[in-house]
């Protein structure tokens, strides 16, 4: 059965509405005000020649920039696995193809848009770029897409099947798809955090705490209901995805109420917005909070004020109050405060 190799997050990078490829948001965040905020793109020429990027939309450029940055930060050239999560995949290309199909009929469609509409485009792109023939897969399941990818990588590392893994979460949002998702009541509700985009890459490694941001102690997915009282209870804060929408927030209220012991509550979507890969940004933020051992006051959702010392964190996420995920993570042993 399960061997117990320790799993660490060696590096974690993001492109979001905050300053890209940076942790500056921990000190001076962007406070988003609109209902829909797109990511800030870095200058992609550091990673891609114009010839290489000629067919790539935002999603692919961002995925490549975050993953190559994460690999460089972890000083790993080629990961032992590439596992990707995305809720909608390359929705920009999908929409262009779909829109033309619906408006102009079935003639002469452009292959590039179709080719990049599949959800595994990103995982494949990074593999091609790093010439990585290792295990490569993609999860696409609403708001637990990244969480599913994380679980897959975690289990492989834990069981010694691989010793490093690149785990990604990527979603983009076009203006028209924002409008469509608003009609469906997923984003854009009054009082809700902005609809946003997310590109996150992290490098995980087994038995390698050197310079790690944090250790991942466990990851789980639960469908239907999450028995939070059955989870390990040694943690000193909970990170959740409140987003200002009643149904979403009520599900977190219920989970927190079921905790055997009350703990300080942290949140992140007020800074990063909502999208199907938002949990990847939440986990990224949690990893950096643990790396510095302190959650800044702006992440606190509870009554307490001021920065909060954090050594062990429970990360909770859900999709439609139906599909739940949790991650238990802690400061690595060599990073005692």
């Amino acid at each position, binding site marked *: 059965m399960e061997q117990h190799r320790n799993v660490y997050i060696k590096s974690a990078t993001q492109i979001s509405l905050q300053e890209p490829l940076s942790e500056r948001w921990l000190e001076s965040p962007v406070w988003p005000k609109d209902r829909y905020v797109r990511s800030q793109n870095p200058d992609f020429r550091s990673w891609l020649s114009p*010839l290489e990027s000629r067919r790539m939309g935002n999603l692919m450029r961002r995925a490549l920039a975050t993953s190559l940055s994460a690999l460089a930060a972890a000083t790993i050239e080629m990961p032992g696995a590439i596992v990707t999560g995305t809720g909608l995949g390359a929705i920009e290309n999908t929409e262009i193809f779909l829109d033309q199909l619906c408006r102009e009929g079935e003639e002469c*469609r*452009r*292959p*590039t848009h179709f*080719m990049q509409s599949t959800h595994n485009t990103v995982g494949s792109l990074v593999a091609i770029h790093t010439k990585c023939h290792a295990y490569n897969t993609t999860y696409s399941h609403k708001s637990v897409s990244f969480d599913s990818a994380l679980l897959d990588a975690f289990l492989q590392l834990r069981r010694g099947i691989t010793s490093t893994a690149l785990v990604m979460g990527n979603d983009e949002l076009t203006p028209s798809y924002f409008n469509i998702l608003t009609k469906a009541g997923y984003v854009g509700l009054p009082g809700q955090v902005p609809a946003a985009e997310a590109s996150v890459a992290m490098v995980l490694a087994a038995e390698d705490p050197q310079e790690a941001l944090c250790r991942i102690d466990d990851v789980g997915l639960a469908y239907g209901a999450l028995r939070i009282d059955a989870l390990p209870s040694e943690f000193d804060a909970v990170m959740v995805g409140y987003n200002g929408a009643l149904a979403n927030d009520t599900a977190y209220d219920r989970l927190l109420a079921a905790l055997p012991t009350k703990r300080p509550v942290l949140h992140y979507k007020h800074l990063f917005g909502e999208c199907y890969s938002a949990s990847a940004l939440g986990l990224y933020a949690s990893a950096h909070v643990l790396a510095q051992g302190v959650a800044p006051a702006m992440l606190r959702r509870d009554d307490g004020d001021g920065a909060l010392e954090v050594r062990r964190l429970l990360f909770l996420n859900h999709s439609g109050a139906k599909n739940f995920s949790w991650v238990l993570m802690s400061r690595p042993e060599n990073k005692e405060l």
Partner: protein
Amino acid sequence: MKDLVTELKEKTIAVLNLDEMKPEDIGNDDPLFGDGLGLDSIDALELIVMLEKEYGIKIKDTSAGKDIFKSMNTMASFVEANRVK
């Protein structure tokens, strides 16, 4: 013939998003694929779509692309000989 070559260069740059290139950067006999401009099989498919839309030329067999898209000059000769608009 010269004008058609320039026109094709402009259209190729546009359809393949070769943003930072100008028509004069592509030599008339430069190889477009492999070591030349570095285009690949998907670019060939995009060019096939472009020829159909712009010149009404239908190409049903992708392997024909290899000869047609050797260089801007070969593409221009093919368009000249086969265009219906």
